[in-house]
């Protein structure tokens, strides 16, 4: 992985995954920045991790369940809908999908 080269195709793909409408200038700048960062993080290559289990949560917690019941909430529907820019008939309005 040490020689992984991030080019404009990679940037376009990552922008799509990230939902960014990047400008050309931004894309050029990000290509340089992300190459620098990938180059830095690739030093992990040197570390021998043979037979080591990964850690995703430091206390190794498993799923914690709660009772399936409706509890009183701080914010009601009106307060939450009130945060959106446009609301119509209790729905949030967005531009056409297709």
């Amino acid at each position, binding site marked *: *992985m040490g020689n*992984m080269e*991030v080019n404009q195709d*990679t*940037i376009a*793909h*990552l*922008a799509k*995954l*990230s*939902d*960014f*409408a*990047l400008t050309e200038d*931004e894309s050029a*700048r*990000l290509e340089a*920045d*992300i190459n*620098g*960062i*990938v180059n*830095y*993080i*690739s*030093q*992990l*290559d*040197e*570390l021998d*991790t043979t037979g*080591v*289990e*990964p*850690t*995703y*949560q*430091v*206390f190794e*917690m498993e799923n*914690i369940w*709660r009772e399936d019941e409706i509890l009183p909430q*701080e*914010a009601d529907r009106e*307060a*939450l809908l*009130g*945060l*959106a*820019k446009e609301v119509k008939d209790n729905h*949030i309005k*967005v*531009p*056409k*999908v297709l």
Partner: protein
Amino acid sequence: MKTASKDISAMTLVKEALTKAHQYQEQYHIFNYLNDTEAIRKAAEIDERIKRGENVGRLAGVPYALKDNFLSPEGETTASAHILEGFTSPVTATAVKRVEDEGAIMIGRTNLDAFAHGSSTENSYYGPTKNSKDLERVAGGSSGGSAVAVALGIVPFATGTDTGGSIRQPASFNGVYGLKPTYGTISRYGVVAMASSTDCVGFFTENPEDMDLLMKVTAGQDPNDMTTLPDFYDREEKFDDPIKKIGVIKDFDNEAVSPEIRACLSREIEKLKAAGHEIVELNMPALKYALAAYYIITPAEVASNLSRHDGVRYGFRSENVQTLDELYNNTRNEGFMPENKRRIMIGNFVLSSGFYDAYYLKAAKARTLIIQEYAQAFEKCDLILTPVSPNPAFKLGEKVDNPVAMYLEDMMSVSLNLAGLPGLAIPVGETTNGLSLGLQLVGPRRSDQELINFAKRMRGDHESAEDEHVDLMGGND
């Protein structure tokens, strides 16, 4: 800290804090929002309750500053990011609720690097906060505004979040105490998420005693944050030996760390030896890889957590849109800061198919090795003393265009977050040109109170040493 009573009113405390806040704001740019009206209303209410003889709580009338990534209905919660502009939260973070239930009064929301992405508070949509000791230098970050608010004496405490050093580094850049508790000690409910497996809520204070009080008030399990640990702070009566074995990490003693920081650590070690503590040298070779692992794991979590900001349900929405896709893409492109975009894209890179094993899985394994290395270290010592950052506060603009140089500032702070350990930044003097120097005390998980107690003792030892020094100097007045 001073609390309101029959002798001193909450109104006096709050007005004093607000006056200072307004006075310093223009020069230092500490706050994104000042809560004058609501703070004064609450102070009057507390004073009324004191007059009636009610118990108003352990933080009665104490003014405090809130990092602007904690949700509460007082002022917009912006996380210093354009994309949250206009968002006033209908819910209140658990940490906010707990300090306010004890009578604390929020006087303002403090500046940060947008979404807490940064080590200088320069990545804020609203502009940088200045260092409390030198206006040409950075406040540190990401909780820069909170650190400066305490350092300038505006408030006795401020909240912070620490994902990779965001409390400890600005604390040491400004000469105050900053605690990143054991992962899961204080609820993250109502805090703008950055990286869920390393995010911690903590505080800035002027002294370790106030830190202890704030931990007693806020630590503990919360049904709204399933990752909070069963209550442990101030619960277990443990024998806390005043004489400690203190670990020093040899791997950090190299030219990547500035001579001033290394000299500062050596001085503190000599003082600790003189006070009777034993120094243990530690070799921790995996720590060298902590920064690389951190800048894989946290961007991956950032990419997931920040995908919710799409301009649909709250905050900023781009005007310039015809379709739903344009709404998402333009809102996110206009609403995020360059550093937010870098981290989201790096996160999507390390998680994408073909790279997942080489980067994300590899980093998760490195994390295990780092956890093991600390566990072995704590078999040899009770706590570890290390620098927080390789340099004292740097100049504004010096690193902001070089992401890797900025990331390197976090090299000695991030391993604690990966391992879930508590770290307490303590102020230990100044450089020859007056910049603050700080070190951090690190302990095993759930040793938060021992760290605070040890910091109290270190301060006591220093104060008596200083008294002696004054005596030897022949009674300066």
